[in-house]
């Protein structure tokens, strides 16, 4: 199996989850209110009151065979809006 870690800005979260569902992800887990540093600079929770928000961290565990479809669907979002994605190996418990 594969583990996919995606980190995007919170306002894009709903769209990312929709994309994951359409691309056939069997499930996902979302941590909101996540902060960090990336190419776009520092992201803090200071703008939380504004709808601008912080980041969200989405984890997807899926079969290796599903990964390519998910990656193809997700990459344009990361390119357009920013955000990063990483893949690792995993096994079901």
């Amino acid at each position, binding site marked *: 199996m594969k583990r996919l870690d995606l980190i995007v800005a919170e*306002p894009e979260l709903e769209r990312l989850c929709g994309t994951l569902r359409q691309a056939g992800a069997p499930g996902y887990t979302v941590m909101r209110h996540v902060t960090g540093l990336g190419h776009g600079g520092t992201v803090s*929770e200071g703008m*939380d*009151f*504004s709808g*601008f928000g912080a980041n969200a961290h989405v984890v997807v565990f899926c079969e290796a065979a599903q990964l390519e479809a998910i990656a193809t669907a997700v990459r344009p979002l990361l390119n357009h809006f920013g955000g990063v994605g990483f893949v690792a190996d995993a096994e079901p418990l």
Partner: protein
Amino acid sequence: MDSSLVLQNLLSPPVLFFGLGLLSVVLRSDLEIPAPLPKLFSLYLLLAIGLKGGMELQHSGLDRLVVLTITAALAMALLVPITSFLLLRTRFDTYNAAALAAAYGSISAVTFITAETFLGALAVPFDGFMVAALALMESPAIIIGLLLVRLTTPRDSGPGLGWGGLLHEAFLNSSVLVLVGSLLIGVLSAAFSPAGMAKMEPFTEQLFYGALSFFLLDMGIVAGQRLRELRETGAFLIAFALLAPLVHAAVGLAVAVVLRLPQGDALLFMVLCASASYIAVPAAMRMTVPQANPSLYITASLGLTFPFNIVVGIPLYMAALQRFIPAT
């Protein structure tokens, strides 16, 4: 200029708490108002001014002045972003110029609320329909901003928002919805459930000043953090962020004089013109014009224009309008 107005504003609790927030950033204290507490205060403030405005609107009704003022407000919400864009385009690319123009064409509800509080301390009355003007001036600049991008750049074929998404984002974002919803609830309840409105009063009236002070403490922290990023902003934008409010307030004053608005409404109108959005507009621009750099438009509106208006602008506009509009 009446410097006592500035001093009186500067030494009022809400502005002092704003200063405490700024100071805590300067001193690198670990003071923070953790999320989602600022959201609680901002929702509360919108809900409370919506309800109060709606109640007063119900009592006063819609007359000619209301319609004229609201029309003028909408006109300013179109004029300001377009003229700002033309100016900003001389230094920024289309994306950043449009996003900045949208921010300055829209409004800051907290600046408006602080101006209401300032009027309250001076015992100068103002009308409930100004809250309707506030609500109506929030969204148009978002549309203008994207129109400017679409008209001046080749059609972008990324996964961005379509027009449907944009209109949705402009008119149904949470701050517009809470404000307009509370305004309508205020109108309806004042008409049909006066006992209910009376029981809301301790919540919406008595807590208001304290909640505003608490929220401004957080806004001071957030604005202070933005000020740290000022280096990236550039001298031109710093000048724009400090001069645009003055110019827009002056235009607002001229309109208010023509419309014969009373002092309180005139100040609020000037503040609507002079303030810039750091809530609805940045959130919408992040999604619709991701090519623009958020640290430009947020730092300008939140780090510079907002503190300027809160600390200096409001009493300054008041001093200016007192020369042209007699007290009632």
